[in-house]
């Protein structure tokens, strides 16, 4: 963007915290609820700045400014409080519900599958559900099969939901702000291994539009598509590929649904080659979805098989050696890119 903005360096977690803070200041209808999002509710001895602020501290400090009505600890009742977010959204509020880990969707799927996503359509457009579900995705923390999943394909499959996953602090701030103004249910996916990553973010109000991918590196030989952590891996892979004389273009999806097919197809039209790197499981996942879209809508530009870099069709293993082998990496993307470039 050409506009000059004052920036500052913060972590991904801080960027999320700031987006919530600014939006809660701007819009009194926004509030946050989830397990321990403030922490230690009703404990008199606990100073507000000692409270957890979420299991990984991402929302720490918000309760001091907004109080416990608007930063609201919940019981471990995901069905009730995420469903309550839907009811609140239908009646004038803009809730942010934290689903601690996306794997816990198992405990509250109905609220997303059959309620928030479908109400507007089922009611003939006469209701809207402006809410955001913040949730942790991704591996690398040895959190194993029930805590390290990357389930956005399931969310993206559901019409009526939007699905977002930033790869850097600035996008995190801008996309979360956009999500809170979107008017639709938005699933905001936060990769656990990104929280401590630092980057520049614009000060003050900052919006990154939902539904627009970013070309984070221009190149002419092959398109590398990634999102969240794999968007970073793709950039690292591109640097490595440059050493081999392969000039990769990198597309950071930022939004998974609605998918910015145009940016992907334009890039493939230029490069003729595609590698998709994704941390979700491979069957009916994001990687084959994108490959399928290109095979359908961009077939004539494709000059080589699409390269797919995903975990295997297995749960996330615990042991560090296995988890490392499980996850996508820059090296795997490099190998896939070389293969599709015939080098």
């Amino acid at each position, binding site marked *: 963007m050409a506009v000059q903005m004052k920036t500052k360096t913060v972590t991904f977690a801080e960027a999320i915290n700031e987006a919530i803070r600014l939006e809660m200041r701007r819009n009194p209808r926004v509030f946050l609820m989830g397990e321990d999002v403030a922490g230690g509710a009703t404990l008199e001895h606990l100073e507000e700045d000692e409270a957890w602020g979420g299991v990984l501290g991402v929302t720490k400090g918000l309760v001091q400014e907004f109080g416990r009505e608007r930063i609201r600890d919940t019981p471990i009742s995901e069905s009730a409080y995420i469903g309550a977010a839907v*009811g609140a959204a*239908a009646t004038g509020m803009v809730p942010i519900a934290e689903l601690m880990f996306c794997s816990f969707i198992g405990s509250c799927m109905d609220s997303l599958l059959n*309620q928030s996503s479908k109400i507007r*359509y*089922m009611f003939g457009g006469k209701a809207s559900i*402006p809410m955001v579900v913040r949730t942790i995705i991704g591996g690398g923390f040895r959190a194993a099969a029930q805590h390290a999943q990357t389930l956005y394909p399931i969310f993206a499959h559901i019409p009526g939901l939007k699905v977002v996953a930033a790869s850097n602090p600035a996008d995190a701030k801008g996309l979360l702000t956009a999500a809170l103004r979107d008017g639709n249910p938005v699933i905001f996916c936060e990769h656990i291994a990104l929280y401590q990553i630092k980057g520049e973010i614009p000060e003050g109000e900052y919006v990154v539009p939902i539904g627009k991918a970013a070309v984070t590196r221009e190149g002419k030989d092959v398109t590398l598509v990634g999102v969240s952590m794999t968007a970073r891996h793709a950039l690292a892979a591109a640097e490595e590929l440059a050493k081999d004389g392969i000039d990769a273009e990198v597309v950071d999806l930022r939004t998974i649904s609605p998918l910015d097919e145009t940016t992907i197809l334009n890039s493939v039209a230029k490069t003729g080659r595609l590698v998709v790197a994704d941390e979700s499981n491979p069957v009916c996942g994001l990687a084959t979805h994108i490959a399928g879209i290109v095979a359908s809508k961009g077939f004539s530009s494709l000059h080589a098989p699409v390269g797919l870099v995903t975990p295997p069709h297995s749960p996330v293993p615990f042991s560090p050696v296995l988890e490392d082998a499980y996850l996508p990496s820059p090296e795997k993307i490099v190998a896939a890119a070389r293969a599709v470039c015939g080098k």
Partner: protein
Amino acid sequence: MNIDRDTVLKLYETMVTIRDFETRVKDEFARGRIPGFVHLYAGEEAVATGVCASLKEGDTITSTHRGHGHCIAKGCDVDGMMAEIFGKATGLCKGKGGSMHIADVSKGMLGANGIVGGGPPLACGAALSAKMRGSDNVCICFFGDGAAEQGTFHESLNLAAIWKLPVVFVAENNGFAESTPVSYHCAIENIADRAAGYGIPGASIDGMDVLAVYEAAQEAINRARKGLGPSLLECKTYRYHGHFEGDQQLYKTDELQQKMMAHDAIKNLHETGIQQGLATAQDFDAIDARVQQKIEGAVAFADRSPYPELSELDTDVYIVAVS
């Protein structure tokens, strides 16, 4: 409790509207003019009617798959309802929802719900919203006896209790979940007794007696309005027809059916009204006639309305950015 003439006539008119609406839906379904699954509320009129009579502007309700009665009691337009059930463009949901998803948020009717147990969390949210917006509005959560075995029931009662949310949970215990008797699916006799597990008031009442429902609901609603938190009200009731249209109901005995129909809520109110000198047979007849016309009009409206345009297929999935 003092019931006046206006209240009696209002309750009567609502109940008769529901009864006639459902009876007509049944006929139209049998004639093949209504698509999909249809669950009728006939027999249970006293519950929705008695509860909703104490609601005011801004109050909301959540409903179930058996939602027509709730809609009518909450003031939804019967023309739009009938058109919706027919799948027409003039329906409350433009024909996209149908019987199981009929809704009118502008009237505080947050939707029939095809998911058993789908309503309670939504009700908590609507109540939380009312509370956070500083209103004294309440939300009524209607649900069946079968729904009392869903996890959402438990989570929602606990959440409403700890947050003192203005919700009244109304269990419509009609004795069956599909063909399964409540005595089998529920470990205890009175669903209302579960209130104790959440430290909230619970009461089991005769759900075929609209005045009893009216009274008990008013108390719970007032409590909620005052910020004293949720209640659980169990109304023992009965559905006259099958679980859905097409169900042969062999799981009901004739004795049961006759016994319950003899205890009909509309007939009861009719009798009580006259006995207590609150209304005359002529008053009731006038309502009967008016309602009949209304339902006739609704069917005619639905009938002459067009089906949705195919361009409607993928609209209304998302709202266009509001900011």
